Every structure is written in structure tokens, then in C-alpha cells.
């Protein structure tokens, strides 16, 4: 399938002249010189130079003369990106192996259901070495609520190290374990604290530079994106505009730098028809922002995770727990997401 001249990003008058002179496909233009093109198409020399630069520039970038990637190349690229495991087998299988890299995911839930726990777990799990099935990458944690407490990170990091050391079978894994200790995990987790939405906007604007300086980052967590945008705003349309802009920037970062972006959202009560139900906050249009949406909720005493929106996996609900392994009854030592049976 060849690329047509009408799809090139050049001025419409020039396009019309090219097409009426008989140049249908980009391949026809490739081997011409500017003087030849300007005489044949009846355009000025400067315009001919611009058109040829446009055509040749794309080819020099290694893109096929058709322009863009083929679907097969895209598929292979996506397969190679990997995903971040959560250590909860049911949740991982629902998400198709874990949280996908290169996409934005949203986690919504009521307070206390475990959103921050999941985020901290992911920030630790992204650092698991490759030979154990992780990504061996670094993590950026943007905290807007002040709920990032180092004590919890230490608990989860210790649990992850213990889990991996129990799994280590061959020498390669044991070697990798030496670089996977509490200190290295903590030193590869970057924390940014934003106190209001202006700081959050500034931070996300500067994030691409940070990611360029730290190419091993594979996860960016924003906990939570709802908090700074839910007060101080009289003009809701401005809020929607800013959130959309943010969502665009985050998706761009996710694809350009090969990172997974996780956003946490709060729940709000929606009253209608005499009933009230819980819906994710920040409005209807925000629902389109993330690629995947995971909703965490209670049913009686059981916590459930529902995959609410995903382009590649069916909707499903699985139970999960936040466990604590108690060595000493008076202190909490470690915790992680743990799969429990359906009943």
C-alpha cells in the first residue's frame, strides 16, 4: 500500500498542483530534483525543496516510504515491552500478565481499599530483576496526598527480596539477587511531592526531561491525581481542560519513554433517581483519559478488583487481600498483595 501525495503534511494549494500534474504517490516524488519538480508541477522552487525535504526526511528516519509502522511491527514492539507483575496471581491474569508498559492505567477506589498499597507494590515490583520475571527498572512516585510513608515501602521491599530469594534456583538468579536489596530498591524509587495542582502541572511538564536523564525508569505513579483537582476549582471547564492536557502529556510520555503510567483516582457519590452510587471522581470526560481502568471496591468484608475498561482484556472481577505477615504480634513487618480463593 503506497502512501499518496494527498496525505503529506504540505499546504493545500501545493498539493492540488502536484496531484493535477499527475503525482499520485510519494514514491513518484522520491527521485526528483527540486528544479525538475518545480517545472513539472508549476510550483515555486522553495515549495519544491520543502516538499522533497518532507518526503526524504521521512525516509531517512528509517521509516518505510509508506510512512509509519506496520501493524505487525507495532504488535512485536508491544510484546517486547513487558508488564509489571503485582504478585497477586488473579490480578495479574486479569490484566494479562500485569500492568502494561507503554500505557496509562487508572486505579479508582474508596478510601482504605488499597490504592496506595497497590501503587507502592508496583513501585517495588518494577525493580525485580529480569531473570525473575520483572523489568529491572526504576520508579517515579508523585505523591499529592502525603500518603507515601517510607515504613510501608520498607515492608514491601523486604517482602519482595525474601520472596525472590526463596525463588532463586540457578546462579544467574543468585547473582541478580545481590543487586536486589533493600538499599538498592529504596535508592531506585524517586519521590516527588506536589502540594497543589500548579506544582503537579509543573512537575509533569518537567518529567520528560527527568525521564531522559534517567532512562531506566519504567513506572510513573501519580497518587492521587484527584486530590489536587478537587478543591480550589470554581471553573470546572478549566479543570476538564487541564486534566485532558495532562492525560495527553502522560500518554505521550508512556509511549515515547516506554514507561507504565499509573494514576489513582478517588470515588465520589453520584445521586440520581433517589439512589446514590459510587462513581470515580473528576467527571465523565476523565473516564476517557486512561487506557485501562481498574476499580477496587468492597463487597461485605472482601476486597474486589474489577477491570472496568481495557482495550485488550475482558471485564473481570477478582478478590484480593492486603496481607501482613506477622512475626511479632505487636509489630507489622511485611505486606503484599496476595491471591485468595474465590470463595
Amino acid at each position, binding site marked *: 500500500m503506497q502512501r499518496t501525495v494527498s496525505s503529506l503534511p504540505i499546504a493545500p494549494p501545493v498539493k492540488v498542483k502536484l496531484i493535477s500534474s499527475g503525482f499520485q504517490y510519494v514514491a513518484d516524488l522520491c527521485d526528483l530534483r527540486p528544479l525538475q519538480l518545480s517545472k513539472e508541477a508549476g510550483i515555486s522552487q522553495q515549495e519544491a525543496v520543502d516538499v522533497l525535504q518532507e518526503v526524504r526526511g521521512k525516509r531517512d528516519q528509517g521509516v518505510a516510504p509508506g510512512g509509519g509502522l506496520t501493524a505487525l511491527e507495532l504488535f512485536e514492539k508491544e510484546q517486547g515491552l513487558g508488564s509489571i507483575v503485582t504478585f497477586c496471581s488473579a490480578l495479574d491474569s486479569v490484566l494479562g500478565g500485569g500492568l502494561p508498559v507503554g500505557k496509562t492505567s487508572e486505579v479508582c477506589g474508596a478510601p*482504605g481499599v488499597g490504592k496506595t498499597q497497590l501503587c507502592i507494590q508496583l513501585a517495588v515490583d518494577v525493580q525485580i530483576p529480569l531473570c525473575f520475571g520483572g523489568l529491572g527498572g526504576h520508579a517515579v512516585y508523585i505523591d499529592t496526598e502525603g500518603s507515601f*510513608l517510607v515504613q510501608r515501602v520498607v515492608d514491601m521491599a523486604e517482602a519482595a527480596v525474601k520472596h525472590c530469594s526463596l525463588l532463586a534456583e540457578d546462579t544467574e538468579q543468585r547473582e541478580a539477587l545481590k543487586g536486589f536489596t533493600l538499599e538498592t530498591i529504596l535508592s531506585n524509587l524517586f519521590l516527588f511531592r506536589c502540594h497543589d495542582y500548579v506544582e503537579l502541572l509543573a*512537575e509533569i511538564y518537567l518529567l520528560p526531561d527527568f525521564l531522559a536523564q534517567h532512562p531506566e525508569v519504567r513506572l510513573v505513579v501519580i497518587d492521587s491525581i484527584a486530590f489536587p483537582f478537587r478543591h480550589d476549582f470554581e471553573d470546572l471547564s478549566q479543570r476538564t481542560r487541564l486534566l485532558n492536557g495532562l492525560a495527553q502529556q502522560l500518554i505521550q510520555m508512556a509511549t515515547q519513554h516506554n514507561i507504565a503510567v499509573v494514576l489513582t483516582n478517588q470515588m465520589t457519590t453520584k445521586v440520581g433517581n433517589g439512589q446514590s452510587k*459510587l462513581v470515580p471522581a473528576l467527571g465523565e470526560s476523565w473516564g476517557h483519559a486512561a487506557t485501562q481502568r481498574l476499580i477496587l471496591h468492597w463487597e461485605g468484608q472482601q476486597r474486589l478488583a474489577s477491570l472496568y475498561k481495557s482495550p485488550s482484556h475482558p471485564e473481570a472481577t477478582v478478590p484480593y487481600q492486603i496481607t501482613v505477615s506477622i512475626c511479632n504480634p505487636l509489630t507489622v513487618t511485611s505486606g503484599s498483595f496476595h491471591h485468595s480463593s474465590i470463595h
Partner: protein
Amino acid sequence: MDIGHLELNPRIINAVKKANLRSARDILSLSDSDLQRLTHLSASNVRSVRSAVALACRSRSPAVTALQLYRGERPALEPGHKLTTGCPALDSLLRGGVSLTGITELAGESGAGKTQLGLQLCLTVQYPREYGGLSSGAVFICTEDSFPIKRLRQLITLQSRLKADCPEDQRRRIPFSDNIYVEHAADLGALQTCISQRVPILLSQGLVRLVVVDSVAALFRCEFRPEETVERARHLLAFASTLHRLSHSFCAPVLCINQVTDVVDPSGLAVSNMGLAETKVLPALGMAWANQVLVRLMLRRMEGHKSVDGWSGTPRKLEVLLAPHLPRTSCLCSIVEEGVRGSFTPGSTPLD
């Protein structure tokens, strides 16, 4: 942030000033094309303005790693210690005590003992750092009854029984009642003035490091009619964000005492009940408030249970409902002459 101090070409700075864009909020809230239109600058100039403003905003708090926080190298972000409650059992339930940043909520029925614990914290905050305090005073904002001054005097006299670890001569040097500032707020306007004007003055002068609001629910529940929930939520969020900002800027713990509401229809409950299926009461003020608190504690009276550790009176149970760093555990405690004391009995089992 002063626009004039940014590292930009003076011509660009003048264009921005002429467009009446003074603060970071104005500039960052506009899109690139809006900025171009208002300032008549080129696209690349607009991008450099935005980067300079963003850098100026963020230079206040640079990136840190979790390791630096763990080692205590960034006390502004992670203080590394907590405010003791005065009782070792309660401290171990809370893994050290009350968190120094963020809002801690204490909910319970009337007569459960919430004000008692609030008073106890007003005293423990005055101890020096090595005994778990913050060497500073407390501000106690009353919205319901008058301040229980007699009980406070009793607690002060019996401090030696509660906190036995502090030597007597050091304790005598602390003027306990002088360091507790009591504010009365009879309506929402007074409450908002109090926390936005008077409390910041006390905090910035270092006179106080603890803010206790007793109670949060009283004014918000009575000043709004049931159909005005949106209005109430807006005021609640504004109130919570002021407290949140104060807590983070001054590294001061905030304790908000809350009332409870009855769970009317457990089966048809569309609102989240936080997995407490058998509970009959929930903290008041709904989801809007619940999203703002960091640590949620509930104090219950355990009627019909025998007293704990030989103390007289009905035992209480202090439960952790919600916290990022604590599991769902509880601890039995009692209100005695010298304050609230917890016990290390096997009653402290995890709830899930």
C-alpha cells in the same frame, strides 16, 4: 514566584507582564496557543516561558529517593519520628504514634473518650524529642462544649504516672497549661477564620506543633440542610485542604475528632462501608471527608466486657480503620485517672 526573577530575555518577561500574567498558576493553567495569543510571543518563546516557570515552581522541592527518606536525610518530607500518645500499647498500635504530616481522624460515639485522647496528646506534644514529644505547644479548637479545664488540670497533676520515662526535674520545667491555646468556634465562619488566620500565626512562631479540632462534625452537620450536600462537601474540602497545607508546611500533626452516624440499611448500602460489615456506626461526614484523612481511628465502648488489666470502668477499643502503613488492628484501652491507657492483651488481633 516573581516573574521578573526568571532567567529569560527581558523582552519576553515584559510581554508576559503586559498580558497581566503574574503567577505560576496563571501561566501553567493556559495552553500554549492561549499564551501565544495573549503575549504575542512565538511558539518557542512560549515554551521557554513555561519551562522557566515550571522550574521555578519545582525548585522548592527537588527529587529525592526513598533511601534518603529512610535514612532521615530529608526531615522536611519524612520526619522519621512520630508524636507519642503517652501509652506504649497505643504507640505500638500506631507504629510509633500520631503521624506528623497529614490529618489523623478519631471517630467514636459520644462518651467514648475522644476528647480524653485529644487532651492527652496536647500534653505529650510538650515533652522533649527524646521522650516522644515535639517540645512545643498545642492549639485545641472547641466547636461543641466548653473546654474541659478541670480534667486537664487533673491530667497535668498525674503526668508522672502516665509518662514515667521522663525524669521529674525535666517535667517540672514544662509549663503544661501555658502551652495549650484554646479556641472556640461557634460557627463555620469562625472556624474558617481560626484555621486560616490565627492557627498559622501560632504555628509559624513555633508556639504550637499540634492542632486538635473537637469536633469536625458538629458544625458541618448542623449548618447544612440534608439537601445541601454539595455545598457542604465544598466547604469540607476547603477546610480539609487548609488543614492539610498547614500540616505539611509546618510538619504539625492534626487530630480531627469526628462523630459517628448510624448505619441504617446495611444491605442496601450503596456507599462504601469500608468492609466493616457488622458495624452499626460509621464515621460521619461521608466520602468527601473520608478522602482527605490519612489515618482513621475509631474508639468504641465495649459494653458488657470485663475491665482490662484491673482498671475500673468500661473498657474501650481503639481500632485502626484506615492507614497507609498500619494493618487493621485494634487495642483494648481504658480511661483512667491519668489518661487513656492501652493494654497489650491478646485482644489486639488483626481484623482481616
